């Protein structure tokens, strides 16, 4: 009798494992909802790469903020940059703010990359990596979407495309209007 119960338990456990794996493999690996997602965005104040002052996240309250972590040595960052440039031009002067956070390199290298790639948005120096660590960044490129309420609504790991950027931004803008 007990052996039968154990056999049934083993079958149930294997089925549970199979369902868990099936659900896990269906998940988009670029959209990992762990750590900081759906929580208030860690605040930060960082200097601009070009030395023209600081940017504080607290000053952007009420706006949709897209924070993109990048580095010049990161090839996928170069690949995603045209999409970021198009999205920046599309929402320039609106309630959407794009911030670039430069990681793990000298400010000189970061600034040279920004100028070479035509990044017109605010690009900031995370010299000691503290901001990246507070957001739970694995490595560049990573993009976080912060709603007007200051909560991280989503996160994209790896190079991002224009459609994903626009969809995430418009979802947050629509939510803000409601």
């Amino acid at each position, binding site marked *: 009798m007990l052996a039968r119960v*154990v056999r049934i338990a083993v079958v149930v456990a294997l089925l549970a494992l199979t369902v868990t794996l099936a659900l896990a493999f269906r998940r988009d690996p670029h959209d990992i909802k762990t750590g900081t997602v759906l929580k208030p965005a860690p605040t930060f104040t960082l200097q601009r790469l070009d030395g023209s002052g600081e940017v504080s996240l607290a000053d952007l309250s009420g706006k949709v903020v897209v924070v993109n972590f990048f580095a010049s040595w990161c090839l996928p960052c170069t690949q995603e940059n045209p999409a970021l440039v198009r999205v920046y031009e599309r929402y320039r002067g609106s309630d959407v703010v794009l911030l670039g956070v430069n990681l793990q390199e000298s400010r000189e290298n970061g600034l040279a990359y920004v100028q070479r790639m035509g990044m017109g948005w605010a690009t900031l120096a995370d010299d000691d990596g503290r901001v990246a*660590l507070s957001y739970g960044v694995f490595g560049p490129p990573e993009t976080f979407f912060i709603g007007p309420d200051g909560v991280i609504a989503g996160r994209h790991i790896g190079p991002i495309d224009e459609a994903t950027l626009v969809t995430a931004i418009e979802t947050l803008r629509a939510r803000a209007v409601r």
Partner: protein
Amino acid sequence: MNGRIAIAIALVALAGALVFAARPHDITADERIDQITTELRCPVCQGLSVKDSTSETARQIRDLVAQRVREGRSNAEIQAEFRAAYGDWIFLSPPVASWSGLIWLVPIFALVAGLVLVTGRLRTIDAPRPAEPSATQVAALRERVAREEAAEG
């Protein structure tokens, strides 16, 4: 006799060394940093701890842990800061008091299930086989079968 004395001295020395090594002592800041970073997973490595990794990200995490230790934060507070950013994934060993801690139950469950299965199988093997029917019982059964066949015609 000399051999016994030598063995006794060796045992006493061993016990003394163990007691000395296990004595309660104040843990240094460096030991705390090592302890914490040994348990943290390097985010950009394959199964390496922050302490063992030479990556820039691991170096930045070590610097942050060192600063938090200098600020007087407890180990639990420092771990909570990394958990808030990365989730339980950041720990090389899943914390027991969490959903991922259920993983620790798997070997226990497997052991119990295996023991129950083996015990059940052994009982089946050891169970006494039913005794052979006696000649009288066989004769009675044959007579009954013959009677029922005759009745069915």
